[in-house]
């Protein structure tokens, strides 16, 4: 996006518990919570800021592949269910694979910048535990170029895709040190999750996480270059947030010191039909980060806090390099050190599932 023509803010961030394997209360043999119960919970959470819901001008909802997971499309229809004052107001649904949540924020921001709204309600959810992983893999493979890639992809499609990236990284920069860095990422992710009662890994009580994270991959049991600790879990959950202009802040009685300002959003779309030129580089992320810094007029040295979408530990390592905090091949070292940036440190998000992640990632700024 270009530099914002007016200031944008975020308030009222809320997330439900991210439910799935790892949580003590998760029992796939019993009926699970329905998606609409998650939606209602997150809406109530955001509205608990005290904002008058009648002030909300538009709604945006994001979910990846809900028509296949839960046979539910036409998601904009659920925004007025979540916030009744959105009845007869513009409501949009968004999809963008792992980037769905972030894209929902982007669409909301566009509406505010186009003067179509002063306050937008942005939400996202996923229900993915309703099918066995072996079938879920087929559904999630839709985030790739299904017609061309599914046939020869691994049975667990995306672990296979990122296993290839990890394998290329091991070959280029060394297996042992790469595994150490990825294990350290796993360890710190779970240690962070243990501080968040809503995190899927909150109940993870494994004693030696770093040792577990270094267990070697076994192609006979899983993908060639990754283990279970390198992969995010499948989750059910929802998150939501308000986007506001300055006028929106005034109307909603929000104080600037209680909200966060969004200084840039960079959305960069690659051609899905093209194969990565270099499996050890997240080139699209590099472009997006560059644009975000340019739009905001800042550099990485100005960052105080970093949330990375780590669907796989190798993704986190590559993202650190793409952002520019480490040169190529060195991201794992930074990861194994825990990461230091001026004025703060990496806050690693243990994977909580795809979509609501984009919104959930904003929440730590509120102290969530």
């Amino acid at each position: 996006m270009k530099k914002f023509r007016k200031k944008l803010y975020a308030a009222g961030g809320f997330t439900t518990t991210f439910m799935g394997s790892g949580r003590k209360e998760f029992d796939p043999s019993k009926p699970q919570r329905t998606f609409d119960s998650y939606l209602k919970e997150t809406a109530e959470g955001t509205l608990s800021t005290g904002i008058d819901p009648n002030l909300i001008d538009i709604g945006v909802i994001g979910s990846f592949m809900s028509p296949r997971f839960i046979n539910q499309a036409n998601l904009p229809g659920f925004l007025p269910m979540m916030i009744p004052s959105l009845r007869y107001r513009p409501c949009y649904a968004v999809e963008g694979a792992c980037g769905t949540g972030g894209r929902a924020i982007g669409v909301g921001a566009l509406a505010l910048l186009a003067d179509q709204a002063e306050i937008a309600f942005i939400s996202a959810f996923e229900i993915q535990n309703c099918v066995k992983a072996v079938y879920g893999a087929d559904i999630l493979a839709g985030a790739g170029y299904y017609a061309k890639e599914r046939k020869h992809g691994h049975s667990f499609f995306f672990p296979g895709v990122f296993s290839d990236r990890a394998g290329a990284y091991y070959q280029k920069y060394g297996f042992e040190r790469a595994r150490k860095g990825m294990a350290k990422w796993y360890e710190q992710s779970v240690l962070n999750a243990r501080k968040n009662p809503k995190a899927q890994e909150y109940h993870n009580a494994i004693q030696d996480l770093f040792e577990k994270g270094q267990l070697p991959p076994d192609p006979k049991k899983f993908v060639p270059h990754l283990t279970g600790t390198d992969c995010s879990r499948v989750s059910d959950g929802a998150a939501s947030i308000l986007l506001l202009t300055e006028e929106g802040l005034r109307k909603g009685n929000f104080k600037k010191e209680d909200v966060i300002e969004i200084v840039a959003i960079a959305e960069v779309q690659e051609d899905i039909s093209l194969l990565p030129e270099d499996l050890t580089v997240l080139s699209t992320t590099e472009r997006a980060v560059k644009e975000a810094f340019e739009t905001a007029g800042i550099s990485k040295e100005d960052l105080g806090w970093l949330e990375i979408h780590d669907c796989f530990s190798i993704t986190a390592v590559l993202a650190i390099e793409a952002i520019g905090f480490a040169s190529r091949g060195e991201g794992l070292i930074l990861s194994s050190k825990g990461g230091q940036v001026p004025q703060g440190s990496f806050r690693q998000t243990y994977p909580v599932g795809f979509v609501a992640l984009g919104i959930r990632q904003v929440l730590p700024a509120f102290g969530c």
Partner: protein
Amino acid sequence: MNELDRNLTKVAVIGAGGKMGSGISLLLLQEISRVELSKTGALGTGVFLIHLIDQSEKSINGLYQYLKGHLKKYAEQHIQELRDYWKNNPLLISNADIIEAYVEGTMRIARFSTTYASAKEASFIFEAIVEDINAKAALFHEMEALNTHSPFYFTNTSSIPIHVLAEKGNITGRLIGFHFYNPPAVQKLVELISPGHLPPDFLNLSESLAHRLNKTIVHSKDIAGFIGNGHFIREVLYAFKKVEELSKEMALESAISFYDQVTRDLLLRPMGIFQLVDYVGLEVVKHIISVMKEFLPDNQFSAPLLNKFIEKGAKGGQLFDGTQKKGIFSYIQGRPESIFVLESLNYSPINVDKKWFEPYPSSWKNWKSMQREKDLHNSLKTYFLELKSQNTKGSVAAVDFLNHSVAISKNLVEDGVASSLKDVSSVLKLGFFHLYGPDLECLPL
């Protein structure tokens, strides 16, 4: 195609709808499907056929559902392998496509029937009918009249001497004991019982087949009970004997519960000896005892107390889905919850005085926890030596029972049923999930 694969093109399972027959059917069907897929790249072409036969229509219907369900689970667990097999089939893209293709294709290999005539072309015939000499012999006679190809027979008998069955069935030289453990799809062990004068080719084929089914073979001599039941039944008889002695000083139900807890907790087993009787089924145990009594010289094979339980209605055994039925005990989630009282014909809460067992040895862990010990061998030695040093009622009974169990094992070797204590140990560990065998160096205590 090698000889085993050629024979696998025409297989029959008789008694396929029973508890053991269904598991045997599943194993064979999975292996045949693997062979067909690897040889032809397709399934259900008609080249390979397995006839699944049971006289009960209801059992055949149940078998169909059982096989479909388990084949689906198998395909889900082996999805990557199946994707590799079908990598050149452009029509099979998603995991769901492949799983469905596997299940439907494999089911096409199976033919379901209630008549023995379906097996008239079979090269291999697996028999898993009722444990009755005359019934089995009659089956063999009928098969020989229908099938003129001199098929090989594999019997799942757990106790009847194979040479007796072969002679009665007039199939000497073509019958081998191929004894699966319950449930066949899960248990790793096959007891292979080869009667004298078996052609080496047949024995070799049988061993190859067991390996292909991913089973561990233990050879047993052709003596009634073989190794597994030879040990189990003798332990059961000893347990009933000890219970009868103990019931002179306490209620019978307490004596039974006591010995069940001794054998489960203090001998570190997955279930106590009487829970195991329930698991096998009281009538099945009684029947095995009568078979062993018929063929073995000594007169120890008698269990009047077991007979009383059966007369009063305690059955045990399992439902088709594996749920434990009431027997000596009634169960909640697989654990004994109350015990059958012969006088009242009701179930009463289990009553075992904690003083008989506490304190447990400091090195004690239950069966599940003990099997996770990194140095299991030394943990077991430490535990048993500590058990021996204790003086509780439970520990004294446990040491006595364990030493008797070791003596049973040694007699099985001396009597020529087992080649070695190691073989007995293998059967106990693989077939009964014991954590140790009689060859543990600190035994007998």
